[in-house]
């Protein structure tokens, strides 16, 4: 009960505190709504038992798997925001003598509360969207809003799952506070990224390529899908391991050659935490990945659609195309949200610093430029790296002819441009957060 009372006290929103509370709620809401909608869409394929049913089910699972990573990323960044915004206050509580378990309970409680509120909103949003999503046509008929209603138990499970995700993120974010109450405030250690990551990455990619090459010889549709899902997950894990290391290498050279304040700050910001820099843009690695898959699928459809085929096959191809676009669109939406959340929390985290730099006369333009640069330079690396990794993974199955077909290349290029544009929008959209922080320089007195 005491935990609850103090949580309420600390949750009282101040000027910037409001953003820190609203943002995770919105992000949790969007993530939940998209997850439920995707699940509902996938479920509609599972009631049937005709000859194509199996193919549809496999493809639906593939789409779900492709969306899982951006979803977890979004949920994770929302959870991190809600937990990390409290670091300062929690460190203070620790300094005041609150014990470790108490601080842990408080953080987890707060994060879970925000997550549950957001997820509940997400359920409402999902329900509101069903009539619209129901208009989408698969197998020659619109899905219909009714078919998209999930079992209430599933919905409840999703809400609980989102809450759990928040709890886990909070606990992870908390370890720093618990270990060193002063460390969190002072940010003493710049975490190192180990070169072992590269080795590990190459090994896993190699293993995945081998695994993918194997079944393509006998080509069972389900096997391919399963292997693809595993390959996708593995390749993503690899990118997550290797990405920060590569980003750090580039930032080091950027630091050496930095001539302007914004370049210097940007390079140092990335070096401070290559993992955080990676997280901010890793969403794009998802869209690039999905784009390579999608592009290949579209090229495959293009290759066979000239031929004569039974009606059901034609419908299947059209449906795959629809599915590909929906998957792309949803992953983009989720990435857009995580970038917004990530950027806003990055600014709020540095509130005091930005205010003091403004007072010293650092132009807002310079601060903004440093912020933009610290995101965009890792972005370059992420985009190229993930496209290459995706091509490597998919090559054994699809063959170069399909991956490098015009339809495929076009999709990939459009998605990459779209991804970069999204990041830009995220940066642009969060600029007002920066200007507002500067306009209300008096820190909320507590």
């Amino acid at each position, binding site marked *: 009960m005491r935990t609850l009372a103090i949580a309420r006290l600390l949750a009282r929103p101040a000027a910037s505190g409001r953003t820190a509370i609203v943002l995770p709620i919105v992000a949790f809401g969007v993530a939940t709504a998209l997850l439920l909608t995707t699940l509902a869409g996938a479920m509609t394929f599972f009631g049937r038992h005709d000859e194509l049913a199996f193919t549809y089910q496999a493809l639906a699972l593939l789409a779900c798997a492709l969306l899982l990573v951006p979803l977890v990323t979004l949920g994770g960044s929302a959870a991190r925001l809600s937990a990390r915004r409290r670091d300062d206050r929690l460190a203070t509580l620790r300094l005041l003598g609150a014990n470790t378990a108490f601080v842990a309970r408080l953080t987890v409680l707060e994060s879970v509360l925000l997550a549950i509120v957001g997820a509940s909103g997400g359920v409402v949003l999902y329900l509101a969207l069903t009539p619209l999503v129901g208009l989408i046509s698969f197998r020659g008929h619109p899905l219909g809003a009714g078919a998209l209603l999930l079992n209430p138990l599933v919905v409840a499970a999703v809400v609980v799952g989102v809450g759990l995700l928040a709890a886990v993120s909070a606990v992870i974010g908390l370890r720093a506070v618990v270990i060193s109450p002063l460390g969190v405030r002072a940010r003493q250690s710049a975490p190192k990224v180990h070169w072992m990551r590269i080795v590990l990455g190459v090994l896993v990619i190699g293993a995945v390529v081998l695994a993918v090459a194997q079944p393509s010889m006998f080509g069972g549709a389900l096997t391919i899908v399963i292997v693809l899902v595993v390959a996708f997950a593995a390749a993503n894990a690899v990118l997550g391991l290797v990405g920060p290391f590569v980003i750090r290498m580039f930032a080091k050279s950027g630091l050496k050659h930095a001539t302007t304040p914004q370049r210097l700050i940007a390079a140092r910001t990335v070096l401070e935490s290559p993992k955080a820099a990676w997280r901010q843009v890793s969403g794009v690695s998802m869209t690039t990945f999905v784009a390579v898959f999608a592009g290949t699928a579209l090229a495959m459809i293009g290759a066979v659609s000239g031929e004569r085929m039974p009606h059901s096959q034609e419908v299947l191809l059209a449906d795959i195309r629809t599915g590909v676009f929906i998957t792309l669109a949803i992953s983009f939406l989720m990435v857009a949200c995580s970038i917004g959340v990530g950027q806003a929390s990055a600014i709020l985290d540095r509130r005091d610093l930005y205010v003091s730099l403004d007072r010293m*006369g*650092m*132009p807002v333009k310079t601060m903004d430029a440093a912020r933009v640069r610290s995101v965009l330079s890792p972005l370059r690396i992420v985009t190229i790296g993930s496209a290459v990794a995706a091509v490597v993974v998919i090559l054994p199955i699809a063959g170069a002819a399909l991956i490098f077909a015009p339809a495929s290349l076009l999709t990939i290029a459009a998605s990459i441009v779209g991804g970069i544009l999204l990041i830009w929008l995220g940066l642009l959209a969060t600029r007002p957060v920066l200007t507002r922080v500067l306009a209300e320089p008096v820190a909320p007195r507590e």
Partner: protein
Amino acid sequence: MDAMTVILEASALTKSYGDTHALAGVDLSIEAGEAVAIMGASGSGKTTLLHVLAGILAPDAGSMLLRTGRGEIEISGLNDRARSALRRETFGFVFQQGLLIPELTALENVALPLMLRGTPRTDAEQLAARWLAELGLTGLEQRRIGQLSGGQAQRVAVARAQAIEPLVVFADEPTGALDSTTSSEVMDALIASTTGRGRTLVVVTHDEGIAARCGRVVRLRDGRIVESRSRVAGFDYAQTPPASQAAFGAPAEQRGETR
């Protein structure tokens, strides 16, 4: 004594936040090369005054003149951009917490104001190294801010404020978060690098010991100056009757800086 050159001249400054009259008509002249301590109870308007003097805040009314060798500038008449440029080019700042950029090294933090003015990085870092050495921080150049003690970090902030050779250095409770020994070390550094070099220092403080080391102490109450006493060659003379001192004898309520 020579006719002093007034560098900052505030007259009839007012500034309100809603119903709070943070400044209720302040007149203050600050001479080039002097060290002025601004004191007063919490909420008396010290920070607000400092911010108006430095062009961080625009006053509601009154005039705020900066006199440099090149002429007079009415600071309160400038727009945001121009005031920001003025701060960057002519003033130095030290805040309670150094508020140095945590990702940068000590050296880079000090070099930054120079780079903002367009000094090439290598030159800026050379100058910065010299300032750090001057403040007794040799060997710590490559440390990141979190790896410094509070006093060291604050001396880096002092070095940063000196880097552009500002006309005036503004400090708001620069030693507020330090213990008394460290606090007097930082103050030594601050005074040596400002008035010690003919620069002007305006410092907001709750610490009588620190105020005693400034040439002049200005006391605020409810947004007005109620006392302004100078110390010349170890001899104090008050410009306001000592009777008004009693009200300010009690130490200001110590604000917990634990946000």
